[in-house]
């Protein structure tokens, strides 16, 4: 005996519901999320949310790849600031002695700095390659940003006197080759950042000086002199020339002549980051040698 259900009966809905349940189950099993991936994204989101709540109360545009760009900018700023602090050292008040970053060892330190940056870039690049091999999009983005920050540091350090530019170029070209090796297999999720990092690397290589920057005569000086350091010598006939040079500002090129009127004591004004050579007209002659970020030191003698 067959039970016939009236048309429109609630029982007719059962097959439809079953069809829905079946479809829902198929969707759930076929499009199941990887728990590890979900956990990784969770950690990343919470870290970024925490960072944002610390830095600002009003949310800014924290979206997708833009957040990576922000992270990259922050990393580059940190590196740039760190480099800046290494360069800018305060001049002791009243000192007539040239004070240079790192003292007389600055040139070698600059070379070492570039070398250390290149080492760190090598390490960062290895992490990029490892992240790529493990096919981890999020990690790949992260290490790409770190590598990008190292490139920013290299771009600054290779310009320092004493850097072996040829060696730096060879290493950077080698890194570019490694990076190019994975270019064809980068996922769309990383493509934009990868492209940006590759462009940065190419930019650093292109901007390398054609020949090594010679170490300065004064081993401490890391910058060139400002033009026209003017002598502010006051005629002081009976006194030994004393430098009253004040610390100059800025970086400059050129050799300056200082003119001083007086019997003795010409004061050369050396400006920040350079060798200022001051010549005087008068009874006494003397040179003022100003070194990086320092006061010129006058050594005149009476005629």
């Amino acid at each position, binding site marked *: 005996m067959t039970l016939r259900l009236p048309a429109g009966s609630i029982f007719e809905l059962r097959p439809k519901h079953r069809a829905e349940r079946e*479809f829902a189950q198929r969707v*759930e099993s076929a499009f199941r999320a990887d728990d590890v991936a979900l956990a990784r994204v969770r950690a990343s989101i919470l870290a970024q949310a925490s960072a944002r709540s610390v830095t600002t109360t009003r949310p800014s545009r*924290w979206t997708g790849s833009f957040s990576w760009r922000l992270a990259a900018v922050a990393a580059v700023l940190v590196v740039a600031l760190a480099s800046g602090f290494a360069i800018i050292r305060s001049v002791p008040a009243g000192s007539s002695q040239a004070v240079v970053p790192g003292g007389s060892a600055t040139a070698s330190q600059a070379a070492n700095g570039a070398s250390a940056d290149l080492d760190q870039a090598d390490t960062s690049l290895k992490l990029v390659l490892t992240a790529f091999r493990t096919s981890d999009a999020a990690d790949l983005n992260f290490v790409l940003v770190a590598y990008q920050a190292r490139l920013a540091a290299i771009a600054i350090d290779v310009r320092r006197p004493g850097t072996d530019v040829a060696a730096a170029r060879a290493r950077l070209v080698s890194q570019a080759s490694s990076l190019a090796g994975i270019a064809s297999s980068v996922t769309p999720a990383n493509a*934009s950042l990868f492209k940006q990092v590759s462009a940065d690397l190419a930019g650093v290589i292109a901007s390398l000086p054609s020949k090594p920057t010679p170490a300065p005569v004064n081993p401490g000086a890391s910058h060139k002199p400002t033009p026209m350091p003017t002598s502010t010598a006051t005629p002081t006939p009976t006194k030994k020339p004393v430098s009253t040079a004040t610390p100059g500002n800025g970086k400059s090129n050129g050799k300056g002549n200082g003119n001083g009127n007086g019997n003795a004591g010409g004061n050369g004004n050396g400006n920040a980051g350079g060798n200022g050579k001051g010549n005087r007209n008068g009874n006494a002659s003397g040179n003022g040698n100003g070194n990086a970020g320092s006061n010129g030191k006058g050594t005149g003698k009476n005629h």
Partner: protein
Amino acid sequence: MHESAVDKIVAKARTGDPSSIGSLYDLYAARVYRFVLVRVHQPSDAEDLLQRIFLKVIEALPGYQPRGLPFAAWLFRIARNTVIDHDRTRREHSTLDEIAERTDQRAGPEELAEVAFERAAIRAALELLTSEQRDVITYRFFAGLSPREIGVLMDRREGAIRALQFRAIQTLRESLATGADLLASGLSA
């Protein structure tokens, strides 16, 4: 979870409470992931988009008004827009789209093949639906939204959503059954 309970979590998350943000993620991440994966095909893209979507949600949370629009509907509106944006930019990277689809690497080759086939079959079946039906099905079965929430999102009445879903399920049922038959006949041949 009841809507009012979700609203309480949302209220705390709006203040930047990490624990509440984590709870929201735990509630919706798998659903958002499924919703995204059916559109973008590649799990790596889906993970990236999942992250983008939740960061957008966190950013927009202070401006969210619970009145009128259920949180889930609001969240999936953001998800949908993010996927659309991704589709636009994806065209610029078309050469990279040839990369083979990656799946859970812990699975064996047979299981991977099975999952890949199932995904392809479901995507192909969805292509047979009208645009509206497809939206309803993805919101309902991938995002797990209720017909009421879908109605709010699509600016349609709940009854209309149910009707669209009913017709869509019929089409899907037929096409998926046909696909399975074709596969069975292909395997036996």
